[in-house]
């Protein structure tokens, strides 16, 4: 093996001076220890990009291992003379387990694999949720895939115009707020839609995210074409004893997360009642009792986050199904819109699969190249998408304002006699 060649990286080195641990330190420590030319070259190329203020990666190329249309993102340097060790620096997306739980022995094995067959640089996790293995060459891909699937029992994730790796919050495995079994849903959808994950199927990418409650830890509402968010239809459970303990100061609000300084005594009126967005809560000072008008509650979770030991989501649970969020490439960023206000989440989740497939079929048929589902919904109109495409009834939850419509629009077939009327007869009674 030839000598290790290091590059001067004064601009990149400045990142080490900030208050946080720096990837620059991490990569250099690793590079020195294992004498990894790839790591030195990647820093060299990064320095050059900082200097020129432009990327030195070519775009496009290899997508995966044999038979897979996703999971690997090809990257090729346009500075191959200077940085030969990163002539190819492909990214491998690995399908993360539900809720992102790992056994340390698995992580050790994965690191060994990547030390051996890649740059050693990893990213836990990418914004879609996958484990990201950064930097390998084409010849290694099939070996990596074989080791991943046979030894680590792990599959590649999605990239390109595929279903991207579904992701979920940890849900019932750890969180008392979870209204649905997020990890089971993620697993079931991943297995059901294997073909869509591994074979290009769509006009553009499609992401599915599952959050157990409206706190929405995986940001499903903002970052998924299909957002599944746990909710409940009965009443918020109240432990009045615990509410009184918060008011009396024995329990610390927000799980004591604001203990860094003295914010004064807890004020239930200021910190909970008045912040309830629908004004549906009432604290009776004399009775020392909390009332909630559950019909008006919009499940924002604020009160529960402040008094987690006193308030809990109801027990009659399911999910709200939303569609269409995306980042701002076209038309600006969009949040998902409510499609089904409440759906039961029982395995095998047939209703969910059905509505998903209906949306896909329409999008595959009518969507334009690189048009996200949210853009398509905007183009044809949410009302048409819900009623005509998905065949679902229009309900007040589909709109924010006004929930009670003062205007009524009739279609001709709904009006006896249609639109034809005798104008002369009308004018007799109403002169122009």
């Amino acid at each position, binding site marked *: 093996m030839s000598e290790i060649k290091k590059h001067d990286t004064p601009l990149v080195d400045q990142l080490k001076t900030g208050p946080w641990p720096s990837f620059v330190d991490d990569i250099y420590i690793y590079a020195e220890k294992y004498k990894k030319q790839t790591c030195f070259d990647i820093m060299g190329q990064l320095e050059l990009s900082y200097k020129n203020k432009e990327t030195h990666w070519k775009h496009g*190329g290899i997508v995966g291992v044999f*038979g897979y249309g996703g999971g690997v993102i090809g990257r*090729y340097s346009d500075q191959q003379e200077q940085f030969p060790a990163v002539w190819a620096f492909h990214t491998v997306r690995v399908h993360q387990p539900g809720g992102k739980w790992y056994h340390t022995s698995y992580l050790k094995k994965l690191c060994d694999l990547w030390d051996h067959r890649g740059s050693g640089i990893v990213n836990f996790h990418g914004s879609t949720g996958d484990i990201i293995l950064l930097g390998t*060459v084409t010849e290694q891909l099939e070996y990596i895939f074989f080791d991943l699937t046979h030894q680590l029992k792990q599959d590649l994730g999605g*990239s390109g115009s595929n279903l991207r790796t579904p992701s979920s919050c940890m849900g019932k495995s750890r969180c008392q707020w979870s209204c649905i079994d997020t990890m089971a849903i993620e697993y079931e959808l991943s297995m059901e839609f294997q073909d869509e994950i591994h*074979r*290009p199927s769509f006009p*553009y990418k499609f992401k599915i995210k599952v959050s157990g409650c409206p706190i929405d830890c995986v940001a499903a509402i903002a970052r998924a074409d299909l957002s599944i968010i746990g909710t409940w239809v009965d009443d918020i459970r109240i432990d009045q004893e615990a509410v009184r303990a918060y008011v009396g100061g024995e329990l610390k609000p927000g799980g004591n997360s604001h203990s860094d300084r003295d914010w004064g005594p807890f004020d239930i009126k200021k910190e909970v009642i008045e912040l309830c967005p629908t004004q549906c809560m009432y604290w009776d000072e004399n009775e020392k009792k909390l009332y909630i008008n559950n019909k008006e509650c919009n499940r924002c979770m604020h009160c529960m986050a402040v008094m987690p030991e006193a308030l809990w989501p109801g027990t009659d649970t399911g999910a709200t199904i939303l569609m269409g969020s995306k980042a701002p490439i076209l038309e600006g960023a969009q949040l998902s819109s409510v499609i089904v206000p409440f759906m039961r989440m029982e395995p095998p989740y047939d209703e969910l699969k059905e509505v998903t497939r209906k949306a896909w079929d329409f999008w595959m048929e009518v969507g334009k190249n690189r048009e996200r589902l949210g853009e398509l919904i905007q183009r044809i109109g949410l009302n048409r998408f819900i009623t005509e495409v998905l065949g679902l009834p229009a309900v007040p939850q589909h709109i924010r304002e006004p929930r009670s419509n003062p205007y009524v629009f009739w279609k001709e077939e709904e009006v006896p006699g249609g639109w034809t009327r005798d104008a002369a007869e009308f004018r007799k009674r109403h002169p122009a």
Partner: protein
Amino acid sequence: MEKEELKQKIIEVIEKKIKIAGKSKVYLKDLQKDIPGVSPRDIKNAANELVREGKLEYFSTGSTVMFGIPGVGMGLEAGTEKPKEE
């Protein structure tokens, strides 16, 4: 349309695009436009089967995927070759 017939048609569409428009990579949507009356799902399945058979190959930008005929146009290695070892 029978599956084999559809696969043949897909190859024809791509070959035509190479000849006429000089385009070596196509999106699934392009295939759909040129093969009307067939469900997008069937086209997808046929195109993916052609990849398994080695008659087509994928080409990705990371955000989308295109289909091409192996060896035509920009290859999987994006027109780059691994530098020769000294």
